[in-house]
């Protein structure tokens, strides 16, 4: 080899040399890729055992520990973080390498510790937890001493004593420690029992004194029967206690290192360096607390493998693993379904029940699901396709359970359940055994059960058509059926003769059909008298004419009633007229009310039209919010679509604020960069620059200032919107409570529960934005003199990030 390298022509000297170097580099790259592939796949199912695969891999890696050390370290730590369910396979690998090469073992420990510390600093909480777990399992492989691990765990539990930090920080550190114990509990018990016990005692003390105010906000059901909605730390603690009771005999996690015990116990261990968790910083965001969702127990599952008990550590491990599969594959629904059904321990558990439970756990997660609802709906459909003989039955059973418990389900989850069920039915020919639920027809229509069916039917209507919905339901359900979604145009009805605006309405119809201009419309409307309904005319805008709005809005929208596109085109074409009529908030509310008068039987049309009016800025967000709480809408108050409108309104406002905020940050960054780069434009460092900052790109100070003002104004609008919404809630709830008290009636009516539920939904659905105004809300609205039930909702929300 050496000879060949030395033989080169004088002429081709440089070229040959570069070529050889390139070949060497690409050879190295090939080897690295191969190593990576071997390491990544060592845990995959193959014809040979994991143990023999590991042995083979170790002998390959041994030789490369010198040259490819860094690459191997990096691959292994990535495996630790990205494949937590294969933790024990890779710790065994590290253990075997450490037995052969103590120096490498030490370098790996250092590398893994670095990974752990960086994750903490970057708030990558899952990566940190998986790193910690890996370090803990390395104790089982004789790579790390039990004593030094316990020291680390103790240091982490020290965080639980920090008092000026958010509770969610303390919680996370305790959670991280607890979640390593299934792996290393046994070993610590055998080697350092008393230290382990002290650690557990410290944890217990913390768990007993921490606040659980947030718990109720996160529960899916308000009632604990038949399955309690346990707070996540409480649940894990119960599971660890039970594991301790069983002397830490944990049987679920596969432990390849046991087969290599004779080799590993000869290895020298390393001590972890002193690790200090990074101090809390204001910018750090910790995971929010959660509730453990349970809907099945072993009695729900047919004969076969048992569903592990709620407080068994197996349940925790299985659920964590299934959630991780969803996280890994949620972008490809078919793969996700296949991976879920191919769960490594599927023969040990009633897999389909576990999967369905975990999926609903995510769908019903409070405050908001991890992914958009349709992700879960479509994965469930794929699961049904893969196991058509069994999964649909499990899903039907789940639906039945959810329906039976719907009385105590929180409103946010109720909405998601309605949306999911209607979507699911639309994929399966709307087939369902409705008769089995007909006892709900005896209940008041405001009761959650009949209401659920009503709302499902409304959603099914949107996905199909009226005749279809009527035909699919037994006759007994007639009163819950939606009415046909037709416009209610009074100026062509029987009563039209007696209405003031009829003549002008008909003129308008003719003119619009003849493609008249907005100005001509305004002229025609001039013929209408001012109805003079407002006695305080001096307070309202003089151009506010309710009758004009009535005739125009209802006539125009009726003309556009054929489809959404027709309505949108109509609104756009006569934007000018809308603007002229809608100068005040009162006028805007009047517009909304007229949209309602025309389209009250078509909930979906209501939603899209109001969305459009907001979009083209004919009505303001605050007008929509005020209108929703107006007296005219009392009859619609508990209907889902009205809240759909409120939430889309709030979301629009939020989106607007976020957009301006991002634009401002971008501009500030560019401004700062432009400032610094202008000073060192002389040093010609990189020959290639990605994007030259042109003169146009750099914002002026004036531009940045203007953006700040815009954002400031948007924040004011957003704050005002939230204040309106919360204030109205407080008013009507307080009114109800006072009236009930005066009349000697129980205030706990269906209406009351729905309304409190809707209040809670506003907090939770928009918690990130609402949080900005917590202080103001506490000072102005949610004061101590309020009824405790209303105040509770606010306090639970605040507790989420406390």
């Amino acid at each position, binding site marked *: 080899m050496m000879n060949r390298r030395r033989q080169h022509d004088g002429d081709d000297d440089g070229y040959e040399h570069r070529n050889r170097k390139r070949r060497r580099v690409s050879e190295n790259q090939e080897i690295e890729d191969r190593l990576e592939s071997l390491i990544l796949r060592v845990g995959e199912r193959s014809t040979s055992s994991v143990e023999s695969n590991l042995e083979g891999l170790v002998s390959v890696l041994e030789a490369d520990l010198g040259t490819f050390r860094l690459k191997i370290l990096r691959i292994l730590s990535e495996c630790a973080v990205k494949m937590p369910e294969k933790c024990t396979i890779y710790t065994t690998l590290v253990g075997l390498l450490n037995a052969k090469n103590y120096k490498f073992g030490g370098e790996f420990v250092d590398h893994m510790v670095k990974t752990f510390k960086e994750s903490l600093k970057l708030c990558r909480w899952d990566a940190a937890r998986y790193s910690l777990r890996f370090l803990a399992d390395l104790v089982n492989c004789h790579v790390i001493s039990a004593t030094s691990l316990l020291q680390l765990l103790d240091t982490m539990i020290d965080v639980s004593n920090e008092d000026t930090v958010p509770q969610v920080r303390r919680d996370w550190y305790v959670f991280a420690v607890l979640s390593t114990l299934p792996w290393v509990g046994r070993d610590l018990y055998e080697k350092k029992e008393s230290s382990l016990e002290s650690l557990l005692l410290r944890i217990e003390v913390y768990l007993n004194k921490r606040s659980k105010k947030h718990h109720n906000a996160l529960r899916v059901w308000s009632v604990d029967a038949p399955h309690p909605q346990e707070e996540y730390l409480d649940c894990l603690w119960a599971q660890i206690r039970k594991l301790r009771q069983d002397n830490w005999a944990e049987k679920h996690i596969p432990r390849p290192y046991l087969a290599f015990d004779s080799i590993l116990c000869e290895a020298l261990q390393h001590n972890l360096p002193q690790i200090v968790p990074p101090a809390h910083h204001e910018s750090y965001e910790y995971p929010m607390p959660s509730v453990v969702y349970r809907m099945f127990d072993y009695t729900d599952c047919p004969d076969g493998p048992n569903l592990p008990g709620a407080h068994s550590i197996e349940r925790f491990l299985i659920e964590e693993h299934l959630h991780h599969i969803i996280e890994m594959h949620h972008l490809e629904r078919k793969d996700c379904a296949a991976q879920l059904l191919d769960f490594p321990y599927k023969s040990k558990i009633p897999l389909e029940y576990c999967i369905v439970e975990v999926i609903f756990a995510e769908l019903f997660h409070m405050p908001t699901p991890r992914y958009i609802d349709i992700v879960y709906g479509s994965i469930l459909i794929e699961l049904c396709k893969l196991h058509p003989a069994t999964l649909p039955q499990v899903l039907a059973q789940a639906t039945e359970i959810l329906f039976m418990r719907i009385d105590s389900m929180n409103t946010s989850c109720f909405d998601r359940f309605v949306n999911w069920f209607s979507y699911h039915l639309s994929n399966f020919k709307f087939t369902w055994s409705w008769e089995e639920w007909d006892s709900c027809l005896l209940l008041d229509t405001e009761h959650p059960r009949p209401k659920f069916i009503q709302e499902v039917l409304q959603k099914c209507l949107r*996905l199909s058509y009226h005749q279809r919905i009527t035909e699919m339901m037994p006759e007994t359900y007639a009163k819950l059926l939606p009415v046909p979604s037709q416009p209610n145009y009074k100026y062509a009805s029987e009563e039209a003769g007696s209405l003031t605006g009829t003549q002008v309405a008909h003129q308008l119809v003719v003119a619009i059909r003849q493609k008249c201009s907005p100005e001509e419309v305004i002229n025609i409307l001039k013929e209408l008298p001012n109805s003079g309904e407002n006695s305080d005319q001096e307070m309202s805008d003089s151009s506010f004419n309710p009758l004009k709005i009535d005739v125009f809005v209802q006539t125009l929208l009726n003309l556009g009633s054929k*489809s959404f596109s027709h309505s949108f085109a109509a609104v756009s074409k006569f934007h000018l007229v809308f603007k002229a009529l809608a100068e005040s908030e009162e006028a805007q509310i009047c517009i909304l009310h007229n949209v309602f008068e025309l389209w009250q039987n078509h909930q979906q049309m209501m939603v899209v039209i109001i969305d459009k009016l907001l979009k083209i800025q004919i009505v303001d967000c605050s007008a929509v919010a005020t209108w929703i709480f107006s007296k005219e809408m009392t009859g619609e108050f508990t209907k889902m679509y009205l809240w759909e409108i409120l939430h889309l309104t709030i979301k629009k406002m939020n989106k607007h604020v976020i957009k301006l905020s991002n634009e401002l940050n971008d501009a500030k960054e560019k401004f700062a960069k432009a400032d610094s780069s202008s000073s060192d434009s002389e040093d010609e460092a990189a020959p290639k620059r990605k994007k030259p900052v042109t003169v146009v790109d750099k914002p002026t100070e004036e531009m940045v200032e203007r953006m700040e003002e815009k954002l400031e104004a948007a924040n004011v609008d957003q704050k005002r919107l939230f204040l309106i919404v919360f204030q109205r809630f407080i008013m009507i709830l307080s009114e109800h409570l006072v009236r009930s008290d005066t009349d000697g009636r129980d205030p706990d009516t269906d209406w009351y529960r729905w309304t409190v539920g809707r209040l809670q939904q506003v907090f939770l659905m928009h918690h990130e934005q609402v949080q900005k105004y917590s202080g103001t809300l506490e000072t102005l609205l949610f004061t101590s003199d309020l009824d405790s039930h209303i105040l509770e909702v606010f306090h639970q929300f605040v507790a989420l990030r406390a």
Partner: protein
Amino acid sequence: MSAGSIDLSSYRDQHFKGSRAEQERSLRESTTLYVGNLSFYTTEEQIHELFSRCGEVRRIVMGLDKYKKTPCGFCFVEYYTRPEAENAMRYVNGTRLDDRLIRVDWDAGFIEGRQYGRGKTGGQVRDEYRTDYDAGRGGYVTLMAFSKNIVHKEDACHRRC
């Protein structure tokens, strides 16, 4: 490596004004989707409801028979952002709307005129090769249309489904 759900399909619009490369770039950046295999009776409202579950729909343009100006079984759905359109590719493509499995694919962008079927009888080309009875798409293809197009079978690979 199997196709990802947001990958481009093999379909390329033969009427696209521009090079293949340009078309592919548009498709990779597009926020517009083509939706096919709809029933002729599927409404804008139904489409709006389903696709709104993936994000905020900017607009829907119904595909129309060139002569009758009635829906002929396809439409365009446009979102404001790419990620929302990707959601539709991931979670709506291959599921049911109005009891039919619908196909969702990337589209380079709606231009006036593209809402019309390109078949000789006014509907979609694919409907002129169909041999099965499809109640939601006019039943059987008229014999006249079928025989007219049998010569052009080699174009079949370019028709959308």
